[in-house]
Every structure is written in C-alpha cells, then in structure tokens.
C-alpha cells in the first residue's frame, strides 16, 4: 500500500515536471528556428479543422434539444423568457467546453498517445535525440499548442452552432426574427459567461494535450503498450476534465 502510494506520488511529480517542460518548450517554440511549425499546423488541421463537422452536428443537436426541453418546462412555470439565460449558461458555460473537450479527447487524445507510443517503440524518438532534436520541443510543444488553440476555436464554434440549433427549433415552435433572437441572447450574455467558457476550454486543452503526450512518451518497448497508452490517455483526460469542470464551476458559483 505504502509502495503504491509512493509510486503514485512519484508519477504525479514526474508528470508535473513533464508539464513544466512542455510549457517551457512551448514558449520557446516561437523563438526557435526549428521545424516544429509544420507539426503545429498539422495538429491544428487535425484537431481543429477536421473536427468542425462533427462539432457542428453535435452542437446543432444539443442546442435544439435544450430549446425543446427548456421551452416546454419553462412554459409550465410561465418563465419562457428564461430560455435565453438557460441557453447561454448551459451552452456557453457548461456543455460547450465539456462536449468540445470530449470530441477532442476521442479524436486527438487517442491519436497523439498512440502515435507517440508507436514512435517510441520504433525508436523514432531516440533518433530525434541522436540527431540533436529535443523531442519535447519538436514533438510535444507543437502538439500542445495545436490542441489548446483548437480547443479554444472549437469551443467558440460549438457555441455558435449550439445557439443556431436552438434558433432552428424556435422557428418551428414560435417563429421569431433572426435579429431579435440574437438580440435577446446577447442581452443576457455577460463577460463572465465568455470568460468561463474561455477558461474552461483553455484548461481542458492543456489537460488533454499533456495527458495524451505523457501517456505516449511513457511507452517504452512493446507494441502492446501502445493501445494501453491510448486507453489511459482517454481515461485520464475524461476524469481530469470533469474534475476540473466541477472545480471551476464551484469557484464560479460558490466563490
């Protein structure tokens, strides 16, 4: 038991050190003339651009569902006007960042962990070291920045499509002008809502990228370690994102 606890603490400290190193190399990436920019562009393309379709579909559906449920429930209490507040709170503050994080975990978290695991098994990481390339600066830092930037952009994208989905339902139930719908939404939108969504997607982006990179780099020799790294990356990313979401929400409402 004592040994297990000591092992867990050691791993936590090691992953913390890894995180600090990734953070430092990410800052330095823009000052170096290394070839990491290509990796950064490819990561944004894969994590951000290519995920736009599924994000839009999911956001439209969620926005429509919230409106359908909310308008029937609120009408019973004569609080139909609260619909706009609920849409902003649920989509911009909660579901937007969280569901975007789930999409990114499912697509990019697994991809990063298994790709790095494969590189470790094939000694490609050692080959980078041998020619003088720091794998953290060349491989980890661009992926870290790429995932964080993509998370931020996808979150905004999710919010826009979520509110559009809701608008489509509104047109069916109680047609309203496009301008009026968005004017009502912006009337209840506060800087706190925007800040909350931004902070959550930033933190989730950091969690997903660092967890996936860490699990990928932890692969040592065997090919069988690679899928395990993918599973662990997904599991730990989900858990940490939900935990961080609860903590940030608690700080927001109880603080």
């Amino acid at each position: 038991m004592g040994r297990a606890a000591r092992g867990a603490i050691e791993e936590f400290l090691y992953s913390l050190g890894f995180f600090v190193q990734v953070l430092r190399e990410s800052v330095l990436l823009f000052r170096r003339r290394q070839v990491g920019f290509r990796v950064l562009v490819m990561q944004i393309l894969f994590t951000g651009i290519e995920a736009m379709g599924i994000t839009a579909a999911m956001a439209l559906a969620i926005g429509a569902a919230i409106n359908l449920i909310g308008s029937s429930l609120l009408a019973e209490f004569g609080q139909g006007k609260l619909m706009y507040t609920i849409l902003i709170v649920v989509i911009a503050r909660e579901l937007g960042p969280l569901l975007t994080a789930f999409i990114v975990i499912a697509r990019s978290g697994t991809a990063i962990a298994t790709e790095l695991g494969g590189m470790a098994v094939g000694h490609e990481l050692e080959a980078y070291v041998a020619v003088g390339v720091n794998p953290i600066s060349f491989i980890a830092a661009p992926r870290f920045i790429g995932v964080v930037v993509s998370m931020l952009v996808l979150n905004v994208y999710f919010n826009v499509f979520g509110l559009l989905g809701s608008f489509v339902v509104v047109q069916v139930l109680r047609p309203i002008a496009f301008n009026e719908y968005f004017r009502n939404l912006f009337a209840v939108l506060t800087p706190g809502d925007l800040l909350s969504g931004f902070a959550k997607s930033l933190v989730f982006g950091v969690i997903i990228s660092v967890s996936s990179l860490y699990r990928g780099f932890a692969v040592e020799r065997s090919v069988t370690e690679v899928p395990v790294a993918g599973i662990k990356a997904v599991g730990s990313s989900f858990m940490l994102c939900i935990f961080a979401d609860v903590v940030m929400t608690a700080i927001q409402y109880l603080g």
Partner: protein
Amino acid sequence: MIPEIELRSIHFVRGGYEVLRDLSLVLSPGETLFVMGGAGSGKSVLLKTAAGIALPLEGVVLYKGRNLAEMSAQEEAAFRKASGFGFQDAALWANQSLFDNLALPARLHEPRWGKVEVERAVRRAAELVGYDQDLYARPAELSSGERKLIGLARALVLEPQLVFLDDPTSSLDEASAAKVPDIVEALKSRGCSVMISSAGSDFASRCADSIAVLTGGTLAARGSYAEAAAWDEERVHAVTGRLKARVPKEPSWMGSLEGAWVSAFAEDSTIVDAVPPTKGPQGMSSLGDIINDLTGDDEAEGDEKDGS
C-alpha cells in the same frame, strides 16, 4: 590523449533489471571498437548510453573530457553534429520521406546551407551506402534492409567524426551487408572514431582495431584485436572464438622488392580461418601458430588442420 568517448562506472537499469553494471570503457580518437556479446548482453544499451541517447542511472559519459550530462545547449549541439548513430532497426521517421529523414540533421546543424547544399549532402550519403532508389518514398515503402541502409546514411550525412553503429549488418541482404565493412573502412581512413555493436565475427575480423566483450551487462574483456584472438577465458571465448586472426601485412618496402607476389599475398591472406578449438592448452592457438600454419613452418600441424 583525451579519449573520444569515455564511460565511467555506468549503471543502467530498465524495468527493474540492471542492463549495465559498473561498466567503464574508453574509445580513443581514430579507434574502431567492436562491442561484442550475446543477445541481451547490453550492447545496444551501451552504445546508446555512450551516444547520450539513453541516460544511465549512475556513472558519467565523457565526450572529449566533457560530461555529456553537464553540456550546455551549444556544446550538446556540437556533439550531435560531430556524431552519428545508426540504429539496429533503422528508426526512420515514418511520417517523413527518405529525403527529409536524411536532410533533417543537415537542416538542423547547418542552417546556412541552402537547398542545393542539403540535397548534395543527402545524395552523397545515400550514394555512400549504395542506395540509388527514389528518395521521396516513405520508409514504409522500403524493405527492412533498405530502411537500414537509409538509417546508416542518416548517421553519416554530416560526415561525423564519431560514429556509433548498432548491429549495422543485421537484416541486410548479403550484397548490402558486404558494403558495410567498406563504409567502416572509409570512416577509418577519414580518422573517425567508430563504436560498433555486432555479433558478426567476419565483420569484426575485417574492421576492428579493438574488441570489447560484454557478458551479462559487465565488461568481460577489452583489448586490441590481436589480444582478442588470444583470449581463452570460457565466457569471452564463447563470443570471440570465431574471430579470425590476421596476418600482419608486409612492410611497404617489401612490396617494392617482391613486387606482385607480395601484393597478392597481402591481398589474399590478411585474414585466416578461425583457430581450431583442439589447438593449444585452452583450445586456442597463438597468433604465431597461425602464422606458422600459413607460412608452412609447421607442416604437420598444417596438415592436421586441413584434414579436420
């Protein structure tokens, strides 16, 4: 003379298993050192530790007297530029073309080079290892032997002075494997220091200046090639027993006196067959005995050998 690479009291642990134990070894400038040993003896780990790719748990690795672990970024970059590492399984970057695999070291360490210089260096390295196919293919399109050749070329693209080759002849076809000793000879003629892990006795017989034998993660023996041929301790002999003793080449002045015959002798007879285990007190014969066999001074023993 400051050693090119020096390992001092290296302990290397992986997965709770001690791969290298209290290992000290020196590679002198211009020396070609073969690290030999059975499977799992720690040859690859030793080479990676010496090249600063794998970090030991204890001990230091010195490059020209400077501790690798304490080098500044500039010093480390200079070390990486001056050294090349050929991996046992090629370790090419799968998501890059062969050209980019070969060009990365050049782009990294020679930032002033333009496209022309980089391409020249890449093509020269590919030519050196005898690869004349499409350089814009991906590693997955190649056979394992071709990948290995490209891995070797990547190690040599910047013409390093210090080269590590991890089992460079394994997984190569016969024709490609035959090129590797020529490449090593070319490196030697350029004065490079070379550390090679190999189980191939023929390869070592042709190229080694010195031999180090690893057994169970410890250094069992280290000496010149001539000394290695005479090692008789059982665990070392099991590794070096197939090494071929060399007949010293005739001095150059003899060549001028004796003409073509001496030249032919030197060409054909630099390596003789392995020492038969029945000879000598520990199943080994001395280098002198072998020379006698060749020169016919002891006909009886020579006949016995022929008949065996």
